[in-house]
């Protein structure tokens, strides 16, 4: 029978039961590969459930550094009887199925074209360990040991990870070592090893780190000097505020008094969470909230107020599958339109699109500068895939000479020196951005009445048609100013080299870059552009107009990114070809490749 073989290039999937401690064992596996210098891309595929339902952890190993999800499983580790039949079906022909053979497999579970590797994980633990809870946890380490024998993982690397994880708990270290050794010994005694699928140390990781985007964003908010965080729990954004709180509790305590130099409040809903952000920002603190699609819907009214009353607002939207409650534990980029134009009336908001944890960190920090500079909401658009999965990323860094850009805020001295009447909404500099004042600054100057009703330059209520129009036109001028302040799109070639272009954002980046390589190998050249922000720079229009056809990758049904491009740049929709993925799983390179290849073969028309 055919046996899959590959060096440093395959997919391992773990099938577990939610809440059985498998996450830590699976992470150790991914980390070990990573520490052997081989790029990895782990992904959690989990249910909206706390305990008992199937959960999967998939690790793509790719020496070439392709970090997008790849279809098909080369080796499955299945310790969940509930999902076993399904798990067997997805193994590629010639692939391997590692399972807990404490119980015999049902006859109907036998496929002729895959290789079964039974390890009596629970049985071994029953014989060896007394404590039932420990057995359950260590069972996971038995398969990690088995994998180390089957795939040639350096044992010392695994042991070091165990030592770090259970630092100071020597008994646990020993027990974990024993469990791993039991797995190794069992493979040595019963199977040929290593498999055709194999790992070999490389030096392809460089200085990169493994981190999830939410932790990086939380740290970004910390470094940006956020002092107020208000939130309402929602997957997949919850861990973001929790990361902020965790690090703030460690690094933001006043050394003298022991008190907190920050405030995190769990509010009663998302309306209240964003309300706190507006109130705190209006009052001169850096504040933020994090949420997902349903939260953005609820926050819309306040986002409109922040836009119109010009209040800096930072929101991180970790997108998940919609509409409505949708697929809460699956990924999508389906809030683009609802975020870009959140709220009634003529509104538009600055969006940032990070694609690595490092960018989650940087863009979250930048969002505070931009929000204060532009006095408007800035939404950092990440997604479940980036937010909740350990992702390989350049290391985080902070330029210690960096000064926060607090934007146009008048100080007490500036107000004191002012001879003319202060106008909160006066465009003094011609860039559409007025000067703001913080409550309490000056006894008699600078106060104004912030309102969401139409207002004149002095924040006074007005229904005057001309004054109203002038004020909303100024907001468009500010939008133009924003174009020059948001991060520029990234190009992957010097000048145009093809009649075809491809545009993508965020987590579509890795599979897109891989697909471009695949297309090139099949004879189709692609010019690529990654967008970092909305509003779109003029160079985006130039890129689109200088190519015959541009493929736009969207992880949603309605081609929302494409719609934004058409709407904002007034480019011809016919020239923008949809590449859509919306099954809740991250888009794959294979899918992008096949879609584009077939469209090119058919002579591309929209």
């Amino acid at each position, binding site marked *: 029978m055919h046996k899959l073989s590959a060096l440093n290039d395959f997919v391992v999937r773990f099938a577990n039961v939610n809440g059985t401690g498998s996450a830590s064992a699976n992470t150790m596996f991914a980390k070990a590969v990573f520490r052997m210098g081989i790029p990895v891309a782990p992904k959690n595929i989990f249910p909206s459930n706390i305990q008992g339902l199937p959960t999967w952890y998939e690790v793509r190993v790719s020496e070439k550094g392709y970090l997008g999800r790849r279809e098909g499983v080369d080796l499955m580790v299945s310790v969940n009887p509930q999902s076993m039949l399904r798990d067997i079906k997805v193994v590629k022909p010639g692939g391997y199925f590692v399972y807990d053979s404490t119980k015999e497999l049902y006859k109907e579970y036998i496929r002729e074209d895959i290789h079964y590797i039974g390890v009596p994980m629970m049985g071994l633990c029953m014989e060896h360990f007394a404590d039932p809870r420990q057995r359950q946890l260590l069972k996971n380490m038995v398969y990690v040991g088995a994998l180390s024998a089957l795939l040639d993982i350096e044992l010392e690397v695994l042991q070091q990870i165990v030592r770090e994880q259970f630092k100071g708990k020597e008994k646990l270290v020993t027990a974990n070592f024993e469990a791993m050794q039991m797995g190794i010994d069992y493979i040595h005694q019963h199977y040929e090893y290593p498999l055709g699928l194999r790992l070999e140390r490389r030096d392809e990781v460089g200085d990169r780190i493994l981190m999830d985007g939410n932790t990086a964003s939380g740290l970004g908010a910390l470094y940006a000097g956020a002092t107020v965080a*208000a939130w309402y729990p929602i997957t997949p954004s919850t861990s973001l505020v929790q990361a902020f709180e965790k690090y703030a509790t460690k690094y933001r305590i006043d050394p003298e008094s022991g008190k907190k130099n920050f405030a995190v*409040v769990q509010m009663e809903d998302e309306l*209240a969470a964003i309300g706190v952000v507006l109130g705190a920002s209006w009052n001169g603190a850096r504040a933020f909230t994090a949420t997902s699609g349903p939260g953005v819907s609820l926050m819309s009214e306040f986002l409109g107020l922040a836009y119109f009353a010009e209040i800096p607002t930072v929101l991180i939207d970790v997108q998940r599958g919609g509409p409505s409650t949708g697929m809460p534990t699956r990924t999508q980029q389906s809030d683009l339109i609802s975020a870009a134009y959140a709220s009634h009336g003529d509104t538009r908001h600055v969006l940032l699109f990070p694609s690595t944890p490092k960018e989650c960190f940087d863009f979250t920090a930048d969002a505070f500068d931009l929000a204060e500079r532009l006095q408007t909401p800035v939404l950092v658009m990440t997604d479940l895939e980036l937010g909740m999965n350990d992702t390989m990323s350049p290391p985080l860094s902070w330029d210690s000479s960096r000064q926060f850009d607090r934007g146009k805020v008048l100080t007490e001295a500036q107000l004191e020196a002012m001879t003319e009447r202060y106008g909160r909404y006066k465009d003094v500099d011609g860039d559409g951005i007025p000067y703001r004042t913080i409550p309490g600054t000056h006894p008699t100057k600078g106060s104004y009445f912030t309102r969401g009703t139409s207002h004149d330059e002095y924040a006074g*209520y007005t229904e005057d048609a001309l004054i109203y129009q002038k004020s909303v036109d100024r907001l468009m001028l500010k939008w133009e100013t924003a174009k020059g302040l948001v991060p520029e799109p990234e190009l992957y070639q010097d000048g145009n080299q093809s009649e075809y272009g491809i545009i993508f954002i965020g987590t579509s980046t890795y599979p897109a870059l891989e697909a471009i390589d695949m297309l090139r190998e099949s004879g189709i050249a692609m010019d690529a552009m990654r967008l970092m922000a909305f509003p779109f720079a003029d160079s985006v229009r130039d890129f689109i107009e200088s190519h015959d056809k541009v493929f736009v990758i969207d992880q949603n049904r309605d081609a929302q990114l494409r719609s934004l491009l058409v709407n904002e740049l007034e480019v011809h929709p016919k020239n923008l070809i949809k590449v859509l993925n919306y099954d809740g799983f991250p888009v794959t390179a294979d899918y992008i490749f096949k879609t584009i290849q077939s469209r090119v073969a058919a002579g591309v028309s929209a």
Partner: protein
Amino acid sequence: MSFVKPKFRHPDLPLNEVGYSRADYEGVLSTLCAGCGHDSVSGAIVSACFEMNLEPHRVAKLSGIGCSSKTPAYFLSNSHGFNSVHGRMPSVATGANLANRDLMYLGISGDGDSASIGMGQFVHAIRRNLNITYILMNNGCYGLTKGQDSATADVGSVNKSGHANQFAAIDMAGLALEMGATFVARSFSGDKEQLVPLIKAAMSHPGFALIDVISPCVTFNNNPGSTKSYDYTREHIEATAAVDYVPFKEEITAAYAEGEVLDVALHDGSYIQLSKLAPNWNPFDRIGAINRVHEAKVKNEILTGLIFIDQDHPDLHQMLDTTATPLNQLPQALLIPGPEVLEAVNRAGR
């Protein structure tokens, strides 16, 4: 349009101890209907702040949406104001307060704003004991949208269109007591004698201070049959006690008979002097207060005055254990962990 009042200051206008005249506490000209209760409440706020010697720029005034929520434009024009969205003032005030604990926060809302659309935020701000003076201008209707019944309209109360309300009324003072509010009072826009000292006491209170002010809507709910009209309120008003606010410097003069006067020392050194009108009434007894409010309702009384006070409950900042320096004044150097922290984070990710 907002009309800016002439900034003419008569040289003989009396100034308070911080050098401001009463006019310095006023706002732009009101555009509310003549006789609207809300304008009287604005006047009471002006008097209270002037007499308390508050520096206007140390006060931030916030509101939701409604005729009532417009009033912050009509007082304290030297204070920053924030007219937010309908029913959401408490969250904005929470954020503002978190950013700078040193300012005084004055929240203005209506019965529609707080008892319907904003009920959630109202009760949650109470739970957190947000340090704010929360003035609820209660007219039993939605003035700004032309007189629909609000959730505080009493059963059987007839509005201007002749319709009698059938749905149970929410008693905002009673609700606040249930939610753990640390200062609960009720008053009447037509009773400055009572309202002004109550506002002063509320502003001196270190926590959530609710004043539910019956503030009749002359245009839509001042008709016979309405239980929030001027006439009805005057006829049914009952007070727990006569209220006097005594700034900390003044000597306490007991003008009432022994046993009838109660001095409540406030944390800023001032006093509330209460001369009891209701028998067996004790402002520190939450359960008693809840019962008293229920009783009044059954008897068709409008119970006013200070209903309950507890000054020892920690406020939101104390519960969160935030630093004494306002968060909006922490320098950048204190906010950014050193580069070694990121180094450690990176190491942990390898």
